[in-house]
């Protein structure tokens, strides 16, 4: 759909404009770690697509788990948002923005904020124990 200029956009399209495929994530604002919400698995796929959750993981659940919290912290750092690890309004409003399809993190590596040395997020990486 190409419009040489703004006046060439038909009225019909203005009336019937469709939404953003990620608008659904707006409903997830306010979700908390450790709980379960319909749709969080979809959000995890979003973060995996852009490199924030390893490709080795699959079969995502709707649990607000450590993987999602870690992805949120890294995402927030890369986009200069408050690093909370939470699905706050500021973060969700940013997640739904249109964007380039190229991942931010490739094979776990990035030169965006989260990949720089001496960053303050090192203390936020989740920890694992044998289980």
């Amino acid at each position, binding site marked *: 759909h190409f419009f040489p200029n703004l006046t060439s956009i038909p009225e019909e399209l*203005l009336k019937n404009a469709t939404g953003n495929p990620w608008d659904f994530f707006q409903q997830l604002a306010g979700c908390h770690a450790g709980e379960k919400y319909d749709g969080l698995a979809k959000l995890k796929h979003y973060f995996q697509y852009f490199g924030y959750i390893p490709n080795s993981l699959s079969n995502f659940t709707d649990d607000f788990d450590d993987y999602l919290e870690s992805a949120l912290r890294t995402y927030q750092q890369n986009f200069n948002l408050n690093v909370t690890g939470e699905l706050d309004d500021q973060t969700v409003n940013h997640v739904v923005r249109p964007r380039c399809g190229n991942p931010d993190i490739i094979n776990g590596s990035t030169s965006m904020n989260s990949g720089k040395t001496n960053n303050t997020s090192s203390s936020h990486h989740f920890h694992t124990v044998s289980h």
Partner: protein
Amino acid sequence: YSFFTGQPRWRKQALTYVFSPENQLSDEVKAVFSRAFDRWSTVIPLNFSQTDSVYTADIRIAFFSGDHGDGEPFDGVLGTLAHAFSPQNGRLHLDDDEHWVMTGDVRTSKLTSAVDLESVAVHEIGHLLGLGHSSVEESIMYPSISSRTRKVELATDDIEGIQTLYGSNPNFNGSSAQSVQERETGSGSGSG
């Protein structure tokens, strides 16, 4: 700024690009990409020219809808807008379902899903040349761009990044925005 792993870059200075014949793009659309390439060639010693040869072109530009065979399907209006590959792959793909606006102040559009084509083209060409995403919000290589937004001028972060890969255009005077603007308004020297 950031680079792809291994900092891949083009090894020649004269690159050609071709538009997918299947898209049958208008001259207006092609002019948008020409301006976008100009913004990068202003700051680095690379030049870009259009060719009609799909087989010999270094860069191939195409609009696709949904699944188009590279494992990265597009998702309709908004969401992901485009993607491009690292050097020397040369593929630049844009989502055909977007509402692409070519000229005019997209910020005043009544259509909330209107996307400025040149803004996205400049970003994706950055990937083609070897830049990854940047956390600097003012930069072209910042990953997201809201609809009804125009951002086409290279920021200092973009210029430093691309000049790390290719060096500086000898004619670059430190102000890419001014150089391109002069050309658009016809007040430049015209020397090309």
